[in-house]
């Protein structure tokens, strides 16, 4: 057996017994090979499984590799496990989580300011579920806790790293939403004047965008 085959086998065996995603650095250390080689092997293995249409996949989540079932097999697997891993998060929890994910490290107050509500309870729940953790203290007065997402968060989202999140810029509202909000908040006394002033251009926009 050549070395590459031995490494492949060893990586498969180690990942199989671990109940957490196995970091490539750890595999590199165990096999005494460079990490880039570990990653090449893992990618090759994942491709083999896909090609051979295995019921399991080698996934890169939360910075490590693990075996997990092919999503297509979920109907079979679900009859087997007591509960899906993810009881769903409420929209309030998801929005809070999104803010923390993109703005970390961030304090409770800062999250509250963005959402416009007290987020105490939501944050406590997210902490309890292990999706976020305290990652530091604010340097300002009061030294408030700063929160960030955890590896479990990445695991639950099936992401390898935070950089895999779609960029926030993708979600900045489109011009028409901005315009709608702007219009909705125009002081009405002014709206008349503004409408008169820009009646023509508005008419055009409407035809294009709102038909």
């Amino acid at each position: 057996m050549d070395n590459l085959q031995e490494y492949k086998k060893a990586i498969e065996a180690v990942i199989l017994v671990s109940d957490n995603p196995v970091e490539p650095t750890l595999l590199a250390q165990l096999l005494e090979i460079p990490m880039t080689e570990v990653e090449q092997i893992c990618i090759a293995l994942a491709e083999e499984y896909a090609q051979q249409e295995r019921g399991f996949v080698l996934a890169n989540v939360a910075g490590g590799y693990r075996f997990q079932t092919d999503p297509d097999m979920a109907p079979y697997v679900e009859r087997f496990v007591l509960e899906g891993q993810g009881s769903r998060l409420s929209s309030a929890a998801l929005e809070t989580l999104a803010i923390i994910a993109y703005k970390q490290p961030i304090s409770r107050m800062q999250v509250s300011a963005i959402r416009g509500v007290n987020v105490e309870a939501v944050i406590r729940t997210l902490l309890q579920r292990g999706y976020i953790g305290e990652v530091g203290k604010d340097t300002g007065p009061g030294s408030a806790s700063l929160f960030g997402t955890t590896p479990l968060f990445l695991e639950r989202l099936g992401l390898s790293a935070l950089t895999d999140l779609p960029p926030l810029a993708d979600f900045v509202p489109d011009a028409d939403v901005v315009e709608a909000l702007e219009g909705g908040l125009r002081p009405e006394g002014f709206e008349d004047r503004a409408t008169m002033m820009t009646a023509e251009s508005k008419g055009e926009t409407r035809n294009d965008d709102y038909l």
Partner: protein
Amino acid sequence: MTYEVETPVFSGPFDLLLHLILQDEVDLYEISLGGIIDSYIQEIQRMEDVNLAVATEFLLIAATLIELKSRRLLPDTSDLDLEEELALWEERDLLLARLLECKTFKDASHVLKTLTLDAALSYPRLSGMEDQFIGLLPDLLEGVSGEDLHEAFLRATAPKPELDLFHVTSVKLTVAETVEYLIEELPQMGRVTLRELTSAAVDRVEVVVYFLSVLELYKQGVIDLTQIATFGTLTIEWLGVDTETGLLGIDAYEG
């Protein structure tokens, strides 16, 4: 009478305002600030048990909206103090900026949700290693403290947040009301199952409210709960209230 099939649940003042403005997106130029204010105030009124911090935020925004509207009532806007005028616009821009930020994260959260749902279709192998390797493990509790264990317990038993109850919802039924209702009704019913009690419930929030109420009564010792088989029917039996002391301190659950 119009009946809202799907009552929107607003998780904050921005959320509500976004909804009110954007639901009419197609009629961009028909939007009436007055209409938004009316709906907004109505929504605040529907929230009976909102906590103070939340209510304050809602009212603050309502005030800004009303100020924007009041401009219309002034006979001649040209008389306005320029400084006041600018202050209002500034306030408005601030509100607009916050709404945009809120909308950004709201949309981002939808993607997080999709990712979560997709990821939940794959199940990891968790059964660990064969027995012969377990023996090799060094002390697994190295560095674990009582506090860690306590935290782990809370984590394991934490309410799953899907119930959506920790933020402002439009639940019509409150736990306190339901407790009162049950205290009146249960003595006549004798033994009743939770299923029978909630047979008329329209949504799961209502079932949950009943559940919380039953739990509250159980905690107060006025009912007994029995169940013959695991996952079998849960039967509630009225035990009676000590009329002298009555019920003490029903927790105020805020919907």
